[in-house]
C-alpha cells in the first residue's frame, strides 16, 4: 500500500536524522565514543554530553517538530485552507509574549522553569480568549478572525515590552529567544514539554475522520454526523497544548507547520485525515534536519533554529507557489 510505505519511509527518515543529531556537536566526539557513552555509559565527559545535552536536544526537536507538523495539518484541514498554520490562531505569539514577560521581569533567571511556565500561561490565556471570541457556534471563519485579532494583540504587546525595555541586555535576550532555538536544553525541558505535547497529540490524532468529512464543507460534515463544536474544541486545545509546550521550551519556530503539510499533501492523496500522521513525522524530520544544519553550518555562531527553518521554508514555499501556478496553467 502506498500510504503505509510513505509512513515507514518518513519514520525511517526521522530515526536516521535522530541518530545523526546525536552524533553532531561542538564536543567533537567520535561515533564510537558517542555510542558507547550513550548506550553503555563509558567515558564520564562523553556520557554527560550525550545524555544531558545531545539526547534532550534531539528529543525536543522530534517533539516540537511533530507538534508543529501535526498542528499545521489539522488547522489546514479544519480551515480548508492551505495557508493555515499554528501561528494563525494566536497561540504561538501569546506563548511568546508570556516568555518575553518572564525574560523582561527577570523571572526567567530566577528559576529555570519560570520562562516555560510563563509561556504556557500565555498560551492558556490565548486559548480561553480565542474560544470566547469565536463563540460557541462559530465556524472556521470566525476562528481565523479571532486568531488574527489575538496574534496582533500579542504581537503588539511583545513589541511594547521590547519598546519600553530599559535594559539592552534583556532586549537582546528577548530578541534572540524569539528566534527559537534548541541549544542548551536539558531533560528538565523535555519533562516539562512532554506531558502537554502528548496530550495535544492525543486530541489532534482523533480528528482525522472529522477533517476528512469537512472536505465537503461544514454543513455536509455536520449532516454526516460530525460534531463540529466538539471537533473545534479538540482542535484548539490540541494545538494550544502541543504548540504552546513547544514554544515554551524552544521559542517561536515558524514555517514548519505551514510547509510540511503542503509538501506531504500530494503523497497522501490530499486526504486531511491521513495527512495528520504524515505531517507529524515530516515536521519531526524537518526540525531535526534544521537543527543539524544549525550545528553544521555555523557551529560557533549559535545560529538560531527559527531563522534556519524560515530560510529553508521560504524557498520551498516559493517553489510550491510556482508548481501550483504551473498546474493551474497560469
Amino acid at each position, binding site marked *: 500500500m502506498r500510504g503505509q510505505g510513505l509512513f515507514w519511509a518518513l519514520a525511517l527518515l526521522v530515526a536516521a536524522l535522530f541518530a545523526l543529531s546525536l552524533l553532531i556537536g561542538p564536543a567533537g566526539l567520535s561515533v564510537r565514543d558517542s555510542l558507547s557513552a550513550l548506550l553503555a555509559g563509558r567515558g564520564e565527559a562523553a556520557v554527560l554530553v550525550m545524555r544531558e545535552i545531545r539526547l534532550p536536544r534531539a528529543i525536543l526537536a522530534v517533539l516540537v517538530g511533530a507538534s508543529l507538523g501535526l498542528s499545521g495539518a489539522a488547522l489546514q484541514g479544519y480551515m480548508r485552507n492551505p495557508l493555515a498554520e499554528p501561528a494563525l490562531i494566536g497561540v504561538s505569539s501569546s506563548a511568546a509574549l508570556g516568555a518575553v514577560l518572564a525574560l523582561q521581569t527577570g523571572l526567567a533567571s530566577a528559576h529555570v522553569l519560570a520562562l516555560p511556565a510563563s509561556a504556557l500561561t500565555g498560551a492558556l490565556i490565548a486559548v480561553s480568549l480565542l474560544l470566547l471570541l469565536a463563540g460557541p457556534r462559530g465556524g472556521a471563519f470566525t476562528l481565523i478572525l479571532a486568531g488574527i485579532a489575538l496574534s496582533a494583540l500579542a504581537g503588539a504587546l511583545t513589541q511594547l515590552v521590547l519598546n519600553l525595555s530599559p535594559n539592552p541586555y534583556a532586549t537582546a535576550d528577548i530578541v534572540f529567544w524569539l528566534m527559537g532555538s534548541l541549544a542548551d536544553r536539558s531533560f528538565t525541558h523535555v519533562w516539562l514539554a512532554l506531558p502537554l505535547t502528548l496530550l495535544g497529540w492525543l486530541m489532534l490524532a482523533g480528528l482525522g475522520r472529522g477533517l476528512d468529512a469537512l*472536505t465537503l464543507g461544514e*454543513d455536509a460534515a*455536520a449532516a454526516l*454526523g460530525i*460534531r463540529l463544536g466538539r471537533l473545534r474544541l479538540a482542535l484548539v486545545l490540541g494545538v494550544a497544548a502541543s504548540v504552546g509546550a513547544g514554544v515554551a521550551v524552544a521559542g517561536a519556530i515558524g514555517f514548519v507547520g505551514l510547509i510540511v503539510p503542503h509538501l506531504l499533501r500530494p503523497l497522501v492523496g490530499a486526504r486531511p485525515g491521513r495527512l495528520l500522521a504524515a505531517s507529524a513525522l515530516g515536521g519531526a524530520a524537518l526540525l531535526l534536519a534544521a537543527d543539524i544544519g544549525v550545528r553544521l553550518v555555523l557551529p560557533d555562531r549559535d545560529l538560531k533554529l527559527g531563522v534556519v527553518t524560515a530560510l529553508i521554508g521560504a524557498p520551498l514555499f516559493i517553489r510550491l507557489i510556482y508548481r501550483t501556478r504551473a498546474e493551474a496553467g497560469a
Partner: protein
Amino acid sequence: MTGIELSHLTVRRGRCPVVDDVTATLSPGDCVGLVGPNGAGKTTLMRATLGLVPHKGTSSLACLPASERARAAAWLPQTREIAWPVSVETLVGLGRTPHLGPGQRPGPADRAAVGAAMARLDLTGFATRRATELSGGEQARVLIARALAQEAPVLMADEPIAGLDPAHQFTTMALFAGLAAEGRLVMISLHDLGLAVRFCTRLLLMHRGRLVADGPPRAVLSEANLAEVFGLRAYLADTPDGPVFQPLEVVR
C-alpha cells in the same frame, strides 16, 4: 421511522422568523419538491429539519443523535464544496462516514455501496480522477453519488439541479424520482417549476417563511398561488407528453 414529521418548526434570525410555524408529515416513497421565491426560507427549513440550525418546534430528524440522524438522512447542501484534490472514489467514500465506528476502516459493504453509487451516476471510469479537476456538472454528480453512498432512507438536497445543463437537470430529476419510487423519501428544493411538476409527487410551497400550500403539484401551482407567491401567470396543462408548465407574464 423513515419519514419526517415537522411540528410547528420555527427558525428566527434576530426577531424575524425565517421559517414560521411549519407543520408537515412527509412519507417514504414521495419525491417532495420544495418551491418558493428566493428568500422564502427553503434552505433554512431543510437545515432546521436536519437540526443544523437552532429552532423551535420539533423535527423527527433533528431529535435523533447526530450519528443516528446521519444514517437516517443524507444532505446535499447547495454549495458544492470540494476543499481538497482528493480522488473521486475517496470523496464518494465520505458518504460512508456515519456507518463507520471509531477507528473502523471501510469494509466490503462500504466498498460495495461506494461502487453502486458511482455506477448509478455513471462515474465508474472516474474513480481515480481528482474531484477538483472535474467540470461543474461532473462534480455535482460526484457529490450526489456521495449522498447515495450514505444509503440513508431520506435524501434531502438543496437546489441540486442549479447550474446544470438542461439534459443533466432532467436526468438528475429522473434519478431523484426513481429513488423515491424505490421507497425512499426524497426532498429537494428547486426553482424550475416545470421539472417540479413533471417529477415531484408532492410540492411544498413556501412564502415568507410560511408553508402556504402542500399537496399534489397541479393543485399547489394553482393560478391563485402562482399570482400570490411568485407574481406569475403561467400555462399549465396535461399533455400526451406529461404535464407542461410555462410562465407567461409577471403580474405585479
